[in-house]
């Protein structure tokens, strides 16, 4: 609106004037008052609306899953439950992990969510691809470390693993750190 009044101004009066006219002053003050009122009203609301984006994302909790002694070099499937606080709604998500250890005994847990389109992969589920993770949806398959061999663009995700009193604790899902 103020832009328009200025234009209206220039058409009626000589275009170049150094002092500010009364009308211009009023228009600027009005603009300032408008900006203050809009800001005062809108700022709290906008901050309120964008809160989820600005939330500090805390490190996810670790969940006790299985005794470390049960882990072999052959991947095994384990399910565990994760309490999720979704706004005001607290729910329990059931997650699955394929846990195995490498030759050096380092334990790692892979998420079975296929990196292609999000189906669920399984170990040794297809005779054509023995000793591999296979996804039934589009035939993506992965090595034991989660390295993608076909279709999928990335290796399988990992869970953060922690060992505590001979129990394996799994944390949040992170991109695969073993293979690229």
């Amino acid at each position, binding site marked *: 609106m103020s832009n328009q*009044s200025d234009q209206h101004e220039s058409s009626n009066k000589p275009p170049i004037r150094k002092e500010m006219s009364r009308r211009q002053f009023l228009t600027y003050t009005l603009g300032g*008052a408008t900006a203050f*009122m809009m800001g*005062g009203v809108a700022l709290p609301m906008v901050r309120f609306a964008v809160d989820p984006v600005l939330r500090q994302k805390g490190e996810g909790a670790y969940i006790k899953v299985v005794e470390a002694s049960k882990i072999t070099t052959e991947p095994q499937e384990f399910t565990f439950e994760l309490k999720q606080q979704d706004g*005001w709604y607290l729910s329990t998500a059931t997650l699955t992990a394929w846990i195995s250890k490498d030759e050096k005994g380092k334990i790692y847990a892979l998420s079975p969510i296929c990196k292609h389109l999000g189906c669920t992969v399984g170990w040794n589920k297809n005779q054509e691809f023995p000793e591999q993770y296979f996804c039934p949806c589009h035939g993506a398959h992965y090595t034991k470390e989660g390295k993608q061999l076909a279709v999928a663009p990335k290796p399988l995700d990992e869970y953060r693993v922690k060992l505590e009193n001979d129990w394996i604790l799994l944390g949040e899902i992170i991109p695969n750190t073993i293979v690229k």
Partner: protein
Amino acid sequence: MAHGDKLKEKVVFVGDSRVRKGNGFITPPDYTAYPGKSEAFIPNFLLKEWMVGVVVLVGFLVLTISEPAPLGFPANPSASVIPMPDWYFLFLYQYLKYPYASGDWVILGTAGIPTAAFGGLMLAPFLDRGKERRFYRRPIASSLMLLSLAAVVYLTNFAWTHYQHELKLAGEKPEHIKREEQALENRQKGLPTSNAIKQEEIGIVDKEDTAMETYKTATCISCHAADLKGASGPSLRGVGDKHDKEAILAIIKEGYNNKMPAMYDTAIASGLTDQDIDHLADWLAKQKAEQ
């Protein structure tokens, strides 16, 4: 195109346009008959109006920051609270307690008088049709209005003081204050402050207990599932809320409602001892929903 050189002009409707040519958007009313100067709406007048607006806004923001909106405890039909409407309904609320507005006269109270009052207010221009605008020259209209105003103020104040009095008698505080105090107390103790209704799933208590193994060996697992959520049998999560240890032992030994067979012998046959089963019952009795 024929109108190529006319592009710089304002739109001119020609030809078969059936819209009559008007004189401006809305003909501005003429204020020259009024005493004093008039001024343009933007920016002169609006600026003054908005100075008032800015003051109101600042006051309003201070209020919202200093005084959180009240929130009580979740609605519970069996709770005992003194129901209070919002303040601007208090006068109606109070007036409905009077003899001629309740009981046998409730129709008069809820329909008759409010309809007359609000109907009269709405139709004021058709009831008060004189040319005179000054309120002191319209004694009937003005006195009726002043009387209603006085009544509304009186009733509102009466209802409010009565409510305060009732609260004092009952030794209660309004719920939103109670909730705030409770939340503050819990926050200091580091407890959760929420009063929201929890709909969470019941978790398994003591998942690492040896009873979990017994549970599998005793073949409970085939009907009640490995996660205790139940399959052909019911869920055992939170079963401790329904049955105590003795009852659970009895169910294992004798079955339940002809639906579950006695499982004791099967369990013993799979190599469990009485002690194991006792421990299993103990563990199941501990399966309570978290408080």
